[in-house]
């Protein structure tokens, strides 16, 4: 479904993604792991076609079609949703306005406002609150809910569990697992290794912009030496 080959991306002269290759299929959660500054967010931003970093080499294909050169909104409309790092909710928009940016509130097909609110009941109680009036957990839920309203086939999630209470992380993991069961592909960037391993089918580890490890999650889960080597955890 999503195929990235030999991708090179730069912030100015800084070569932040150095020939990364990976793929994500339907029905699977792929975790992209790595320490801070290793290029995970840059890779996700490159897939979304955001202005920086600048991709200078390589290819990103989605269902066989090239994504490079498309505007972010064109990529999103190809059913690739994005949950950005830090949520980046709109401070002046209410919960409902976040969910109806592309679809009207009365839409009946795919993900609807009602379905998102049923998935995240807490948001239903906050429907008229603005993005800057929500708690950390509510912000996390809304960022995922907003992405779901695109009826995505692939979701790029950049540290969705960041700053969440353990009970919220658990809820998010359940939602991610459910989404994969419903046929979505999910590329999950996580600092929280154990949260990522709880939901992922496969794992990539990025180091200085290169994929240095690829395998089933069980493989890395049971190899403490690799966890220490790549992620600095024991």
């Amino acid at each position, binding site marked *: 479904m999503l195929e990235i080959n030999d991708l090179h991306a730069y912030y100015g002269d800084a070569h932040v993604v150095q020939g990364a290759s990976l793929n994500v299929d339907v029905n699977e959660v792929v975790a992209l792991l790595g320490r801070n500054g290793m290029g995970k967010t840059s890779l996700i931003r490159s897939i*979304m076609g*955001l*202005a920086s970093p600048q991709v200078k080499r390589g290819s990103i294909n989605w269902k066989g079609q090239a994504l490079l050169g498309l*505007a*972010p*909104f064109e990529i*999103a*409309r190809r059913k690739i949703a*994005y949950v*950005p790092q830090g949520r*980046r909710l*709109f*401070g*002046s*928009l209410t919960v409902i*306005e976040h969910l*109806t*940016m*592309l679809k*009207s509130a009365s839409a009946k097909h795919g993900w609807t406002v009602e379905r998102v609110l049923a998935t995240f009941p807490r948001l239903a109680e906050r429907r008229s609150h603005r*993005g800057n009036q929500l708690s950390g957990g509510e912000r996390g839920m809304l960022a995922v809910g*907003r*992405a779901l309203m*695109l009826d995505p086939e692939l979701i790029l999630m950049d540290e969705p569990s960041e700053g969440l209470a353990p009970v919220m992380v658990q809820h998010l993991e359940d939602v991610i697992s459910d989404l994969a069961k419903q046929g979505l592909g999910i590329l999950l960037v996580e600092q929280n290794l154990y949260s990522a391993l709880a939901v992922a089918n496969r794992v990539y580890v990025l180091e200085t912009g290169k994929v240095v490890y690829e395998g089933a999650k069980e493989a890395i889960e049971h190899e403490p030496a690799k966890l220490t080597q790549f992620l600095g955890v024991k």
Partner: protein
Amino acid sequence: MSLNLFQLLNGLTFAALLFIVASGFTLIFGLLRIVNLAHGALYLFGGLVGYSTVKLTGSFLIGALASMAFVAILGVALDKGLLRFVRGAELRQVLLTLGVAFLLNDIALVIWGGDTYTVPVPEALMGAMRVGSVFYPKYRMFVLGLGVFVFIALWLLINHTRLGALIRAGVDDPETTEAMGINIRMVFLGTFMLGASLAGLGGAVGGAFLTLHPGADAEILVFSLAVVIIGGRGSLVGAATGALLVGLLNSIGQVVFPELAYFIIFGPMALILAFRPLGLFGRTA
């Protein structure tokens, strides 16, 4: 007392005109991060187009609509033809729009010459009406009503429509807005057209009680800048508050301290900038 009410009405009606012009300015400033120094020239062009159209058709309404449409098209040409080459480079955008302002001024001079024009007021709005204890020009009361109407219409558009939500999202975070599947360039363009058309409407309406002459663009631009700086970039309520403050201070200042009329506007503006750099209702991007 009567004199005071007259001044108050003068201030309010001038504030209404300022709001019509500055609301377009603040929309463009807030969403596109462009200090559009050609906004005054768009006002002047709108006024002159309105003047010629009213002369030609005899209809003030057609004149005002023609002003809005013509200046909206000018806005599209400015955005798609020039500003797209300097996206994100704020200083270049400022210099570019300043250059466009000079260019439009010269074009206006070529077409309409250096004379002073006044847009003919429709017959129904001629004469005076009693407002409290004074007789006051009907036309200026119409401008006051139009200013209130524009405020309500824009407030409803921005706060209660999906387009308005997209504009607010674009003000908050254009990159994320685009990543959510929104063609932010079209939102930008639509907002630029709306902002420009408000300058055109201001020109047509203001041209009937302020004269249209070479240099009128700079005068209205300075007032609009003051309104937006006081109110805060991108804020409709801020623009209304700023317009009220500037309109009333200008009116009172001209009567009470004529030598200090400008200081009475720009002194408080400097104070607001010192203590609230983002303006009264401005927010960080």
